[in-house]
């Protein structure tokens, strides 16, 4: 039977790529291991190798095609004696190759995709963006880069440092072009020591500069947590107000895909525990841009939690000379009357998708994007709960002492009389993140759980 050659995932988080070049033509014989094509991802150019021996029957995707999804058939490989016509009739391979494994979660239909794509529906208008402002589409990655570049142009004291930020343009390409524009004095590759360069940043901030410290991931910043908490967060207080640390610690946070226990942790709840810090976790590109600019200008130490999976997602961003958003203000992402979902960061992807599904069943959900975890905009949440009487929180972090349990406590204390049902908190499972795709999916929250939770609080 002809074999479909599928678009491979060349890195754990790759979802699509550009098929830049074919190195084999239709009719060419290939051996296993032959390089057949080149693929560009957002990280690098990679070679695709043939899995089996055969003859290239058909090239299904033209060279130069962008946005080819992982696992799409890109070519057909013919075995001896087969013709290209047979290839056209060949069934899709995926279903046939997946044996039913009773113990795996793939057998559980209610488990949805862990990371739903960005929603198509427009977010509710942000009152901080003037009506009629022209919008441009950009990825979260571009928005973050632009925010830093704009602030670096505006203020010579702003600089960025971290591992791979200069020559490599960022491990996740967030600092693309910054070295070229601002030079090695302001875009600094550091040695591999989060504890070390977080401390350098705190020192530089105390000396009057405005450092942006990029952590390759917040998982690595565990090493730096003493500098962040015991020094950055507390020095203004301990020095009697004499010296503080205006500094931004930013980088990807939480689970990406297939990076397992040590690289998949959500630190929102951890940092939000600490007085002296502000903690931001944006979802949209507009919020990423407006809030990062605000963070760089803020006189306090800021934890800015990004997400690797969101980096490549596109959103509308206002085209303004200086688009800055207020820190500490939630945004109503979608208006509704029957129940409230509060989330932040990538948790919003589950919330938004669940709201779409619930709408089909006649449940009109209000979705609030917290955007800032500390200071927390509880009034916006309470206003919504007064209207809906029902609340579900969604986050990827662990269930105990989570952001959701904090919200639940405060809403219970301040709006008890308005609640028509117990508040439900959706979080990740209480296990270190496994590597295997099926287990990872199971360990994270999913849209089905959010839908079910909203129905439960609505007694449906």
């Amino acid at each position, binding site marked *: 039977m002809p074999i479909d050659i599928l678009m*491979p995932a060349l890195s754990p988080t790759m979802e699509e790529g550009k098929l830049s070049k074919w190195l084999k033509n239709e009719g060419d014989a290939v051996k296993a291991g032959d390089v057949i094509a080149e693929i560009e991802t957002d990280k690098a150019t990679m070679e695709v190798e043939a899995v089996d021996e055969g003859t290239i029957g058909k090239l299904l995707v033209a060279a130069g095609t962008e946005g080819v999804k992982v696992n799409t058939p890109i070519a057909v490989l013919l075995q001896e004696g087969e013709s290209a016509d047979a290839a056209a009739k060949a069934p899709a391979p995926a279903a046939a190759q997946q044996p039913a494994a009773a*113990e795996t979660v793939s057998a559980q239909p209610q488990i949805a995709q862990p990371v739903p794509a960005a929603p198509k529906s427009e977010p509710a208008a942000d009152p901080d963006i003037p009506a009629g402002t022209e919008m441009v589409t950009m990825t979260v990655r571009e928005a973050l880069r632009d925010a830093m570049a704009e602030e670096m142009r505006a203020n010579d004291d702003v600089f960025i440092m971290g591992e791979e930020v200069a020559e490599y343009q960022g491990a996740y390409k967030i600092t693309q072009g910054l070295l070229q524009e601002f030079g090695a004095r302001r875009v600094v590759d550091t040695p591999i020591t989060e504890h070390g360069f977080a401390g350098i940043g705190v020192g530089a901030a105390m000396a009057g500069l405005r450092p942006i410290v990029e952590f390759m991931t917040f998982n690595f910043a565990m090493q730096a947590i003493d500098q962040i908490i015991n020094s950055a967060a507390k020095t203004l207080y301990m020095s009697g107000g004499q010296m503080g640390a205006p500094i931004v610690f930013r980088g990807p946070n939480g689970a990406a895909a297939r990076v397992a226990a040590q690289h998949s942790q959500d630190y929102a709840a951890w940092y939000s525990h600490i007085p002296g810090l502000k903690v931001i976790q944006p979802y949209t590109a507009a919020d990423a841009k407006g809030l990062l600019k605000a963070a760089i200008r803020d006189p306090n130490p800021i934890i800015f939690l990004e997400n690797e999976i969101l980096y490549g997602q596109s959103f509308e961003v206002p085209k303004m000379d200086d688009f800055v958003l207020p820190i500490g203000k939630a945004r109503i992402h979608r208006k509704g009357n029957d129940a409230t979902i509060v989330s932040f960061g990538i948790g919003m992807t589950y919330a938004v998708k669940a709201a779409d599904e619930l709408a089909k069943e006649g449940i009109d959900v209000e979705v609030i994007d917290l955007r800032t975890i500390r200071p927390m905009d509880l009034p916006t949440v309470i206003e919504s709960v007064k209207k809906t009487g029902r609340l579900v929180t969604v986050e990827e972090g662990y269930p105990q002492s989570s952001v959701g349990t904090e919200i639940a406590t405060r809403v219970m204390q301040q709006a008890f009389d308005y609640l028509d049902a117990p508040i439900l908190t959706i979080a990740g499972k209480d296990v*270190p993140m496994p590597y295997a795709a099926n287990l990872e999916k199971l360990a994270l929250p999913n849209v089905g759980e959010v839908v079910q939770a909203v129905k439960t609080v609505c007694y449906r």
Partner: protein
Amino acid sequence: MPMNDRLSLHVPEPEVRPGDKPDFSRVEIPEAGSVRRPPEDAEAESMRDLAYSIIRVMNRDGEAVGPWAGSLSDDEIIEGLRHMMTLRAFDQRMLMAQRQGKTSFYMQHLGEEAISCAFQKALKPGDMNFPTYRQAGLLIAGGYPMVDMMNQIYSNDADPLKGRQLPVLYSARSHGFFSVSGNLGTQYIQAVGWAMASAIRQGTEISAAWIGDGSTAASDFHAALVFASTYRAPVILNIVNNQWAISTFQGIARGGSGTFAARGLGFGIPALRVDGNDYLAVHAVSQWAANRARRNGGPTLIEHVTYRAGAHSTSDDPSAYRPKEESNAWPLGDPVLRLKNHLTLRGLWSEERHRQAEAEIRAEVIAAQKEAERHGTLHAGGKPSARDMFEDVYAEMPAHLKRQRQQAGV
């Protein structure tokens, strides 16, 4: 030094970047056999010069020369060559498997095979390595089954780590291979702690710490040296200097110090630099350090000087930050080729035998791969059990995890 009104920041830069001609003229390479071999119980202070040289055994012609030669029998050397060839073949198959979508991620050893393969032969059962992600030769040379390594890489239903860990972050306690940490540096200090425990228990086992040139910047490295020095822990402190920490050249972590090995001098720890592409030299130096540790002589720091000929990982494209032909210009050559030449020169090996060994090894690796793929790969076949996901969070499963497992329907 001229007096300036204003200060300026020094940022080290590699000699060359993509498009430039490779240049390793800064790497001073002494002749093979020219570096002295101190007694295993010599005072650390008496061998400070060794931190600035490179111990080499095989010369350009392939002869084993000098005081460090002769630590292995002929059969052991042939076995060593086969281990390196196996590791290389294993890497090739797994890189291909990654490019075919059978796993999400892989890290190869190309050019660095001698270090982990030769080092393991200096250890004894019961000793413990605290490896990084580029020491799979410790497992290959230690006789760990390749199929188990592949099951881990494929995260299938026979994965010894039950689908919990990133590909290549193996764990094999029975084979003296501590679970690899994805966060760098953390295990350097743990290896020292393990060695101190062995001494406290009055055992006979030693440990080996592993770190890359880049991660020596991490605080853990420095803390490890303090403890190893103070308590004279029976530990071998390995630094694999492969010149590149992803895109960051070794000068960023090394800064103004002459060598990474010299980091040990301030702590009074004997520090040896060895030609990491010379299987015989790596073994001799490792053996020296192991013997010293076993005789209660305390820690030794070894800097293995090598070159990462491949990409950092399958997510990396080195052409963005270094000349493509740089690895060919690396002056210490290829470890497999060098040992092959040595054995051939001595009449213990031949082109013919090499080809035959290559074919045999390839067949062994492919057989292991087929067996592993029968259990499944990332996208197809058997998956780790969802039931197991809730195990081992605690030694005994608490009630709330039992509840979560029940809710998950597994």
